[in-house]
């Protein structure tokens, strides 16, 4: 659907050349909700703008449905852009137009008749849940409502692709969740491929199926969201994941645990099906030992379960080792060392 091939984008800052995007290759498939995450200045915003040629690549090419968009002449590029809806962190609504006027704008660009525009606008207002706001001006709306208008406007010309530039970063947590639900609906009900950039791992976790992590203009890790969350490779990726899920108790709690004579702690990761099977209790029962869950979580990623438990075993140490050996065959189990040990 969208393919970046060895894309580099450099900007001139004074006399220096700064590379915002360095040799990025990515493939976004039809139906994906593909998230690109990075800290500010990582180059993700520039990368997103290469999709609709708001920025042009210095090197490399961007292909949409097989077409090299960088090679399109101006007029064809404008037609191509009508097939790529875009929403923004600050909504970028036309202040001089009503909600209905904003949504009608791309339809007027496409040269659609007045009557058809009217019915399409109503349809879109209903889709985003703003039927009663058609005649309001953007300044009369809340942030969440503005972004709904932004989404309706981006969807007006029935695009195949929606690109989102930090679409929820200016919104409070509740509104963010609403907008993310709406984006999910855009993807599942309308079959629109979504490419989004964010600095919030929570956004990736709740709606994306694939993720790329960017740092200093480069993609340092990419893959399915489930795999990336359950087995992050890069240090920056781990930092992002820790921002939404703390996988270990705090140092303070670990210290107290050891000082109060608590036994060795083990960390067990359950992925997918193993999160549902009662592996832990069956194995422990088999060797007749007890276990104590000290800390942990089970969460859903890409509609699969992922568990992270910190446990200690109570009982004979030989038997404990046997249990661990048995568990190792099925799940990921590691001894937990606190940093002071």
């Amino acid at each position: 659907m969208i393919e970046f091939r060895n894309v580099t984008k450099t900007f001139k800052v004074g006399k220096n050349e700064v590379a915002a995007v360095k040799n990025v290759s990515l493939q976004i498939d039809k139906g994906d909700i593909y998230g690109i995450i990075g800290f500010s200045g990582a180059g993700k915003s520039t990368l997103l703008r290469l999709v609709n040629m708001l920025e042009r690549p210095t090197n490399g090419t961007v292909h949409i449905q097989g077409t090299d968009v960088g090679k399109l002449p101006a007029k064809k590029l404008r037609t191509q852009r009508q097939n790529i809806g875009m929403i923004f962190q600050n909504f970028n609504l036309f202040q001089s137009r009503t909600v209905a006027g904003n949504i009608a704008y791309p339809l007027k660009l496409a040269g659609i008749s007045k009557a058809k525009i009217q019915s399409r606008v109503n349809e879109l207002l209903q889709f985003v849940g703003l039927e009663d706001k058609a005649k309001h001006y953007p300044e009369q709306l809340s942030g969440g409502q503005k972004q709904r208008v932004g989404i309706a406007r981006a969807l007006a010309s029935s695009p195949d692709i929606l690109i989102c530039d930090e679409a929820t970063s200016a919104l409070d947590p509740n509104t963010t969740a609403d907008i993310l639900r709406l984006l999910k609906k855009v993807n599942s009900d309308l079959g629109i491929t979504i490419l989004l950039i964010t600095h919030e791992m929570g956004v990736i976790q709740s709606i994306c199926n694939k993720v790329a992590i960017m740092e200093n203009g480069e993609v340092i890790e990419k893959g399915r969201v489930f795999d990336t969350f359950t087995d992050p490779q890069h240090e920056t990726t781990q930092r992002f994941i820790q921002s939404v899920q703390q996988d270990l108790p705090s140092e303070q709690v670990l210290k107290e645990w050891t000082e109060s004579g608590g036994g060795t702690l083990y960390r067990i990761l359950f992925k997918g099906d193993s999160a549902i099977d009662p592996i832990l209790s069956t194995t422990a029962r088999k060797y007749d030992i007890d276990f104590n869950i000290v800390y942990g979580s089970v969460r859903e990623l890409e509609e699969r379960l992922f568990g992270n438990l910190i446990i200690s075993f109570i009982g004979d140490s030989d038997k404990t080792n046997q249990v661990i050996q048995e568990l190792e065959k099925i799940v990921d189990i590691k001894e937990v060392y606190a940093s002071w040990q």
Partner: protein
Amino acid sequence: MAVDWSTFWPRILEATGETLIMVIATLIFGSIFGIVIGLLLFVTRENNILENKVVFQLLNFLINIIRPIPFIIFLVAISQLTRLVMGTTIGTAAAIFPMTIVASFTIARVVENNLVSIDPGVIEAAKAMGASPLRIIFTVLIPEALGPLILGLTFVSIALIDFSAVAGTVGGGGLGHIAMTYGYQRFDASVMIVTVLILIVMVQIAQWLGNTISKKIMRR
């Protein structure tokens, strides 16, 4: 020397009419040229929709040399050009020419300033939707800047009342001419007071009109 008011009132009326014609005609022509120049200045800026260094520098240079010249000096300085274009350097029509030039460049700057205050994100959004540069000018830039633009034009039209008076002193006709010949050269304070009052009323009406229209557009 006392003034014969019975013959004087018609003269005042005529002069008021001349001033109005100068101001309104200048405002119309000045707005047309000024908006075009201001838009060109904005869209040819660096990183804008029709970036063009040569056009931008040229326009910017022109504005910067014309605007600082005091109007009365400019008026005299271009009198040869005025004669060439208008056929005369005396009278209301002749005054409109230099006034239009100055108004155009002043309005151009006002327009540019208003356009700069438009959120660049809105322009980017229109671009992302597939709008052409010309389309962006007419359907985004102008409507988005219109409210403050009307206030800017009001400001300019009040300055034009001032300019018309200056033009009046060097043969341009209008209230300036009357104030000058009767009030200044004949030391007749009563005529001066009448013209000043009329000018004040004009300015008030212009400002009220501008505020009302822009309020309607900006809905505030």
